[in-house]
């Protein structure tokens, strides 16, 4: 299980720029939204040998959903741990990079293009100023994403202090689990210079939104080649922060599994659920689970995937190093495959696969006839066999299994969206039911059958209000747990009839 980590925010501001007030706004907005939050500040030194830094951690799950548990939040920023770095001045942005707080894998940097010259720059007898372009390059190269606007100019234009503009930029970047409205409410609640602060806030918000790649523009360019970088970038502005790490993982997996277009489909499917997810109150909570399950479902196990995994150089390296502890001894790895008629038909187009499957079923071959083989994957012939199978990847989207899987995925997603209209909890439980569908052969068939009976006997009745909403999520969760208790399905059958018994009792009572 991957634990939820707090969202970390590091703010670098100069003295008098109101970094402390900015921190208070963010903390009170997060607290108002119910998130556990903590902040600290480290005073800088006069004459610009260091900015005053503020550090905030927000745990992106509301306290009420933690069941009395309290997250442990850190008081000091950790190198490599910062999600968002904000700097009110360009050199300070560079200084945050130099201190190691900006990492290309994680950190989104929001900085100002304005300069406030440091002592060393000013005392030079000629031009001692730092090269602005160099600074911009350093900052952009080191961050995962950089957003640079002239915050000082925006503050002056709007007649506000730079901290309000910074808050607007933070809101516009959509990296925090709090919305722009909630941050705006924090300014109002604070009660000081509300008008000028709101002007600055909106100026920062608008400037940031104008800089963010608008979703529509990208969609128009649908025909232009999509690259993996573009997709990952799209994740970072179109999905809630809580969902992003999982979605990026999913995008990478599906590009390796099939191609960029398939990962594009994954992202489109997730984006279609953004509203349903937001309706639940905690942006990203439902979507994170869907992003995880959807990536696994879309990369379903078939012969191509197995072949890809079997000949991956990283696999052989792992076996040699970790399992065999090879120094320079010769070794070999032997794999066992036992595909049946169904596995062979998966890659065939439906019009060929269906008659073959029907015929085999009549003959009683399904589940009985297999082609067992042992392949020495470290031999040339064995390697070539797997390579050939892995190369069949292009056939996959035309295959019978692909069509089936996509239809099932679509119906599961529609079910989640419908459940989200009833309750966020129910939607989450429906999403998690995808966990039942996994494995190969009989295991897969059993999981799918279990999923279908839960859908027909618990989820559908719940959506039709035959099971009270308060109990529906629990009912789905217990049916799912029961399905995983024994392979014979006795627990599930018992659980399902209990749920139905309760439902009919209720109807009779009314």
């Amino acid at each position, binding site marked *: *299980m*991957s634990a939820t980590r707090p969202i970390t925010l590091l703010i670098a501001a100069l003295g008098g720029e109101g970094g402390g007030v900015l921190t208070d706004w963010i903390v009170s907005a997060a607290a108002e939204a119910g998130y556990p939050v903590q902040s600290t500040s480290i005073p800088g030194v006069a004459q610009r040998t260091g900015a005053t830094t503020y550090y905030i951690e927000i745990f992106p799950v509301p306290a009420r959903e933690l069941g009395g548990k309290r997250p442990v939040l850190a008081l000091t920023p950790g190198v490599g741990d910062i999600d968002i770095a904000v700097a009110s001045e360009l050199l300070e942005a560079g200084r945050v990079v130099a201190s190691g707080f900006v990492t290309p894998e994680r950190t989104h940097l929001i900085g100002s293009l304005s300069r406030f010259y440091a002592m060393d720059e000013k005392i030079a007898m000629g031009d001692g100023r730092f090269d602005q372009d160099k600074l911009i390059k350093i900052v952009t190269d080191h961050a995962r994403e950089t957003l640079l606007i002239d915050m000082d100019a925006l503050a002056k234009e709007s007649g506000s202090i730079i901290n309000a503009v910074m808050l607007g930029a933070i809101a516009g970047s959509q990296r925090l689990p709090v919305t722009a409205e909630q941050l705006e409410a924090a300014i109002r609640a604070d009660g000081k210079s509300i008008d000028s602060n709101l002007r600055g806030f909106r100026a920062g918000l608008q400037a940031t939104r104008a800089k963010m790649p608008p979703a529509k523009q990208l969609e128009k360019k649908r025909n232009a080649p999509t690259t993996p970088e573009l997709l990952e970038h799209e994740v970072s502005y179109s999905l809630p922060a809580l969902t992003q790490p*999982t979605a990026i*993982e*999913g995008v990478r*997996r599906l590009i390796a599994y099939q191609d960029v277009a398939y990962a594009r489909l994954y992202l489109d499917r997730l984006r279609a659920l953004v509203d349903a997810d937001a309706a639940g109150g905690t942006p990203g909570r439902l979507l994170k689970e869907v992003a*995880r399950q959807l*990536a*696994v479902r879309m990369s379903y*196990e078939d012969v191509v*995937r*197995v072949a890809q*995994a*079997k*000949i*991956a*150089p990283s*696999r*052989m*390296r792992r*076996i*040699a*190093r970790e*399992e*065999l502890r*090879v*120094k*320079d*001894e*010769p*070794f*070999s*790895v*032997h*794999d*066992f*495959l*036992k595909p*049946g008629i169904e596995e062979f038909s998966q890659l065939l187009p439906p019009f060929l696969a269906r008659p073959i499957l029907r015929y085999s079923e009549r003959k009683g071959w399904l589940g009985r006839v*297999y082609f*067992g083989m042992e392949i020495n*994957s*470290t*031999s*040339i012939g064995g*390697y*070539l066999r797997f*390579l050939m199978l892995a190369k069949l990847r292009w056939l996959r989207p035309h295959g019978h299994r692909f069509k089936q899987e996509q239809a099932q995925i679509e119906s599961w997603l529609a079910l989640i969206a419908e459940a989200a209209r009833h309750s966020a909890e129910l939607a989450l439980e429906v999403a998690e039911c995808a*966990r039942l569908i*996994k*494995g*190969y*052969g*009989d*295991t897969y068939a059993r*999981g799918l059958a279990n999923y279908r009976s839960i859908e027909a006997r618990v989820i559908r009745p719940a959506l039709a209000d035959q099971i009270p909403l308060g109990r529906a999520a629990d009912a789905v969760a217990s049916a799912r747990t029961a399905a995983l208790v024994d*392979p014979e399905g006795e627990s599930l059958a018992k659980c399902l009839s209990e749920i139905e018994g309760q439902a009919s009792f209720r109807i009779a009572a009314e």
Partner: protein
Amino acid sequence: MRAEDAGKLERGERVTRTRYGVDDEICTGDHSCIRLSGCPSLTVKPSTDPLRSDPVATVIETCVGCGLCGEVAHAAVLCPSFYRAEIVRNANWRDRALFALRQKVIGWLGGYGGEAAA
């Protein structure tokens, strides 16, 4: 068997050590193999895949390479995750030459060419 192998190793004789394993990426965490085989060396470990929450099957150090788990999984058509790995200690020149040739050619074909084994 282990004592016998240790003796052979010391005398410089050729010894093949066999181990069974499970591929993390291919195992889906259903554990049918464990329910069927019941081997003490076959257990579960946390999935290395960030997208899968169920623990995956694994063969631990104590495996003696009897092959029962793989056979059972094969007979029951469970899954293709199992593999058998063999390492030859005190290899003769034929073992070495064949291995080197295979690694070379597979390396050319874009596969694992033995680069990190040493």
